[in-house]
């Protein structure tokens, strides 16, 4: 006599402790088991692509801060690369190195949040999250010293960076650099070999290699499934070809591998910053670019390896002061494509962990 149970729809609504922002999932549950899941987007849709068409090329930079508000330095970087590719602007050496240092510091800060909130979803009651925020605070201090703001930096400009580094930036960066590796080791001791976390996250929410490539996943999610694809190596932009660092990749693509992948990538970013600090040349930080740039008519697509994955800007220009079309490739949205296949058959508790391990920011999904 099979017990007749009919699935019910549980609304993990826009307001839920672990949906990392206003994101909603209509989960059809059969008891604790997730039968089907349908993500609902649009709660944070501000129409940034429409706004960009009414703003000058420089005026759009503050807009890109608000896309993935956890790593706004990378958004500025991608947008400025796209405009420079469109207008054929050359960026001075010092600006390139400052951009690399800022992008890698932003990667560490963003991955810290990704890992912190993933462990918080696993149930470690806010401790990893607060340790992570303590370390992120040190990076945000450096950003505040350089750009003046703590979240929306608006630091990079078309043709370089808005201002040079202040005198006291380098000593502070040195202090940070010899503190961070020891923190990462302490962090491994906290939860990396924790049996409960291994039992909860190993083998959960597996994204196979083919599935990851087919669903255009990118960044740590793709590399955790065993695909060694990183735009800093495959298609080096700016001065990334001058640094030697390697691309960590895991094999089985489950939640535990994504967590380990992110911690490994933080270590690689530290290596890059170390080399970039040594090779930082003196010189100007910004080429002479007219305030209202009029790039020649045409289109350009520039992409960078932002902490979430491949962030790209597709710009179409018709030789006016505002972009004709500005499309943003949202790595968070595309990483979510495979969420439905990864989650079916797992329990409610796993749904939260798998969703947390993909690490999305709603600002970038809804644009």
């Amino acid at each position: 006599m099979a017990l007749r149970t009919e699935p019910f729809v549980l609304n993990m609504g826009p307001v839920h402790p672990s949906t990392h922002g206003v994101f909603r999932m209509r989960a059809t549950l059969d008891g604790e088991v997730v039968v089907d899941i349908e993500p609902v987007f649009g709660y944070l849709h501000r129409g940034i692509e429409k706004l960009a068409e009414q703003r000058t090329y420089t005026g759009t930079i503050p807009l890109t801060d608000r896309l993935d508000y956890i790593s706004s330095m990378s958004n500025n970087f991608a947008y400025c690369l796209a405009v420079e590719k469109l207008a054929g602007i050359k960026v001075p050496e010092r600006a390139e190195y400052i951009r690399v240092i800022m992008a890698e510091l932003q990667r560490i800060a963003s991955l810290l949040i990704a890992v912190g909130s993933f462990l918080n979803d696993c149930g470690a009651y806010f401790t990893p999250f607060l340790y992570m925020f303590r370390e992120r605070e040190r990076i945000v201090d450096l950003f505040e010293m350089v750009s003046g703001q703590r979240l929306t930096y608006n630091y990079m400009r078309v043709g370089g960076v808005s201002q040079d580094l202040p005198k006291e930036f380098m000593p502070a960066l040195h202090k940070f650099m010899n503190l961070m590796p020891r923190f990462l080791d302490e962090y491994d001791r906290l939860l990396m070999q924790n049996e409960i976390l291994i039992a909860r996250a190993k083998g959960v929410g597996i994204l196979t290699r083919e599935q990851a490539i087919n669903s255009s996943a990118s960044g740590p999610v793709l590399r955790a499934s065993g695909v060694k694809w990183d735009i800093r190596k495959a298609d080096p932009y700016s001065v990334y070809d001058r640094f030697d660092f390697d691309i960590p990749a895991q094999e089985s693509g489950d939640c535990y591998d994504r967590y380990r992948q992110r911690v490994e990538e933080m270590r690689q970013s530290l290596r890059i910053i170390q080399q970039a600090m040594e090779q930082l040349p003196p010189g100007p930080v910004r080429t002479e670019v007219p305030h209202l740039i009029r790039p020649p008519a045409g289109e350009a697509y520039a992409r960078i390896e932002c902490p979430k994955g491949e962030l790209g800007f597709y710009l179409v220009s018709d030789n006016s002061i505002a972009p004709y079309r500005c499309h943003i490739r949202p790595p968070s949205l595309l990483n979510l494509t495979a969420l439905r296949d990864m989650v079916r058959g797992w329990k409610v508790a796993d749904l939260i962990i798998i969703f947390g391990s993909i690490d999305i920011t709603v600002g970038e999904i809804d644009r």
Partner: protein
Amino acid sequence: MATAELDIYHLVKLQAVPPDWPGGFWWHWLFFTVVIIGFVLTMVMGVIYIERRGMGRMQSRLGPNRTGPFGLLQPVADAIKVLLKENIVPTAADKLVHWLAPVVAFAPALMLFAVIPFQNGALLADLNIGILYVVAISSVSTMGIFMAGWGSSNKYSLLGAMRNVAAVVSYEIPLVLAIVGVVLISGSLSLNQMVVAQDIPFILLQPLGFLLFFAAGCAEINRSPFDLMEADSEIVAGFHTEYSGMKFAMFYLVEYAEAVAISAVITTLFLGGWRGPLLPPWLWFVVKVLLVFFAMVWTRTTLPRIRIDQLMAFAWKFLFPMALLNLFITALQVLADWPAELAWAMIIVNIAVMAIIILIWSKFFFRLGGGRIEV
């Protein structure tokens, strides 16, 4: 065992406090009821403070320090805040069940303290089946929690309530078997006699029993790694999602009162209740209860939560067989009539046995389910 030879006559002489101490039966009843209620409420206040302050300092932040000196009045501030909050009852809720649930959940937590000895003989009712009473009463509060889950007609709280029932049912057995181990050694069911018999704290004689009891106890009151019933990252706040105001205060009280109750039972059973060299006996009891509670706070800060099917697997496939083995070995030791002088050898034997059993069991027999079901 050495303690088995003690005859009853000798025990009675040991009792410092005569059974109906301050005058007649009613005075005794009145005095101890007031003491228990006062003790539970102040301990709950102290415990809330320790948890918030302790967790704060462990997370490299300060914890409450604004209300009163060192933030000591924070629990009072919480209580007043919660009492002043509006009492929202969801329209689709089953009014009576929703209203009654906190009471049914809180009463057993308070009743548990009737048999817990604060000092030699100083307890409300020196039942000679004390521990049986504890086990019986502690499972009544599950009824209250399930009523809360069902009454508030909210999917999240229903999930929380279902998890709670499943967990409590399957953790009752390792809990009881761990107690039986202690009863075998102490020779009596009454908690007072148990403490009297603890010349060597039973944690040394029964290390495996202590671990089993601590794990099963934590699962019973959903604390530290087993806090699935109100797992805030998954099912919002579990069974007390729809509660606010006074009723939420009651559930908040239930959670901490049960934590204090389980710590009190652990101190009585394993850490030698009130026995201690210098301090007055009841102070020893309070210090040990706070120590055991701090262990719970410590695990709650660090350990992630385990999944519901792993919770079940851990109970049935790990704790239950270990409890049986522990019971079997304790029975052998009691039969072997170990001389009292060689007690320290017994301690080492027991600790070695514990290590071996855990190693063997976790290496070979304990497999976790895959977790994914074809849908």
